[in-house]
């Protein structure tokens, strides 16, 4: 491993997830590469069906039984996750890698108290006493801004609001001091004012505890404000990845550019004007997918795009999967003649 790679907590190379469905095989994730350094916040951005949730489940080892996972490299802190037996995998889960889900309503078990759910992981993974676990739970609940923490331990999930439940989920994820937290759209179901508070909290805690976070979302505004690095997914692939300022300043992939320009930007987009929409829809990932998956919607598609585009390296850590990421397009086609 080169010196640059030593700092990587998570290394993913050519991860593929296939799901057998009625009509054939769904290639939910089609060979993605990314890495997460210790203590950094990586955002995985994409729209529905791009494979970001499947990726998070693959990393945690929580894929549905019918799914098939392959990867050239899937390493967590040097441990090879593909060959790890399930028993050791579940040791990792919760202790060193934990997950925050989208729906706090369903992610917490309504039949057990909060204290029970918070302490369960720590007792199992670290073998601490119940008393010690409770103390840590109280400390974390206070840290995430929940008042009367000691009383809360005896409360049930239904007694809390959505925002509070999500804070409890964050506390639960932090109980065992994990190295990596995977947060799958944790604020999407919350009100906008609560979302801002939770995001701020997450960022603070992440920096304080030095935890790496993979934050999955579809909201480019959130990404801009909290991410250190961004990976944009489309149709099962990472089509662009870069440090946050670089991605927003110089989006290299036409999809990223399209996404950024179709959000109304207050102050920049004239109100009442037509937004620049991305035409068409995502192609089906069932069966063989050839060439660039974006070419049927791309304003600058060329005949070359029928070949699968390589991962082009731009300056620094900025990479994009496009034939024309770093060079001008030969003869830009007018939109009507897209094939």
């Amino acid at each position, binding site marked *: 491993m080169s010196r640059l790679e030593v700092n990587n907590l998570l290394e993913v190379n050519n991860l593929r997830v296939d799901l057998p469905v009625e009509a054939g095989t769904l290639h939910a994730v089609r060979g993605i590469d990314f890495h997460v350094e210790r203590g950094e916040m990586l955002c995985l951005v994409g729209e529905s069906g791009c494979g970001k949730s499947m990726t998070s489940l693959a990393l945690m080892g929580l894929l549905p039984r019918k799914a098939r996972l392959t990867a050239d490299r899937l390493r967590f802190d040097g441990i090879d996750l593909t060959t790890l037996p399930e028993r050791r995998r579940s040791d990792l889960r919760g202790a060193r890698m934990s997950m925050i889900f989208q729906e706090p309503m369903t992610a917490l078990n309504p039949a057990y108290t909060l204290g029970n759910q918070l302490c369960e992981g720590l007792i199992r993974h670290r073998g601490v006493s119940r008393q010690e676990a409770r103390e840590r739970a109280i400390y974390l609940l206070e840290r995430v801004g929940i008042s009367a923490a000691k009383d809360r331990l005896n409360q049930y999930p239904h007694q809390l609001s959505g925002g509070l439940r999500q804070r409890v989920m964050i506390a639960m994820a932090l109980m065992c001091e994990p190295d990596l937290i995977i947060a799958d759209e944790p604020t999407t179901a919350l009100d906008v004012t609560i979302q801002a508070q939770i995001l701020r909290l997450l960022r603070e805690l992440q920096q304080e505890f030095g935890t790496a976070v993979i934050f999955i979302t579809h909201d480019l505004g959130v990404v801009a404000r909290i991410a250190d690095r961004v990976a944009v997914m489309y149709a099962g692939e990472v089509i662009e990845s870069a440090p946050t300022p670089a991605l927003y300043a110089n989006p290299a992939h036409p999809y990223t550019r399209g996404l950024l320009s179709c959000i109304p930007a207050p102050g920049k987009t004239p109100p009442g004007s037509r937004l620049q929409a991305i035409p068409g829809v995502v192609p089906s990932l069932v069966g063989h997918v050839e060439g660039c998956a974006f070419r049927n919607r791309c304003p600058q598609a060329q005949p070359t795009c029928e070949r699968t585009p390589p991962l082009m390296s731009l300056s620094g850590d900025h990479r994009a999967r496009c034939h024309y990421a770093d060079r001008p397009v030969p003869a830009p086609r007018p939109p009507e003649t*897209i*094939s």
Partner: protein
Amino acid sequence: MTTSSVSPTASSASTPGTGLGEISLQPPAWSRVTRRLFGHRGLAIGLIVVGLAILIAIFAPLLAPHDPYHQDIANRMVPPVWHDEGSWEHVLGTDKLGRDTLSRLLFGTRISLTIGLVVALISGVIGTTLGVLAGYFGGRVDAVISYVITTRLAMPVVLVALALASLTGGSLTTVILLLGLLLWDRFAVVSRSVTQQVRDAEYVFAARTLGCSLPYILLREVLPNIAGSLIVVMTLEMAHAILLEATLSFLGMGVQPPLPSWGLMVAEGKAYMFFQPWVIAIPGIALFVLVLAINLLGDGLRDLNAPGGRN
């Protein structure tokens, strides 16, 4: 504004890979249906056996070697063909009055299936109406109907059916009516809960906003969307009705002799249970197989209908 700006040219109309273009990627509907039906073992078995039973019921006169009512005292209690004294004349033997067991079995299918179907229909209509009304309106209507359902659930069906049948005397019609009026509870419970889910769907709001009449909303918007669950309940209640009829007939309060009801056949063979077990074993096995098949069918339909998601 001109026309061209209203219909986005590059939207769904002209580009490939639109949601609609993807229809052609899926295999044709009939092969999907068959694959789903037979991919599920229980469902396949249930479907085949029940289908066979229906065919037997329809073609019983052609299939039965003898008249099920014909008594031949000279040949009473003949064992089935696999016994030393059996013969191919009466493949499954004869009963105490010399009637051919096989023929009675085949004709008995008619009785079991008729009862199952008609009772399921009657109780289905009663239970679904009550359940949909309770689920859709909620509030006081729901409170009253739930009270009725709970009362019904508190009744031991067999005892009540027995008591009522003894008042009116047993017969095929009595059995059907009684069971139809008693077995609607599961329909009501299921349709009530499914209706509660559908009631809050936005397409129901849309219909209400339009000013659609209540009967229209219940029949055309709500009912088709709860039909899946109800079909499952229907198969289960069919099996239930068949078993109950057998029980009633066995106790003498159901179908009366000489009708070839399987339950009656068991009752009539009771005395010979230890020395000529085939007389009750054969109709008993037939009951078991039919009820099992219907249950498998119901389970299979429920699995098929279960959250397959939005497509």
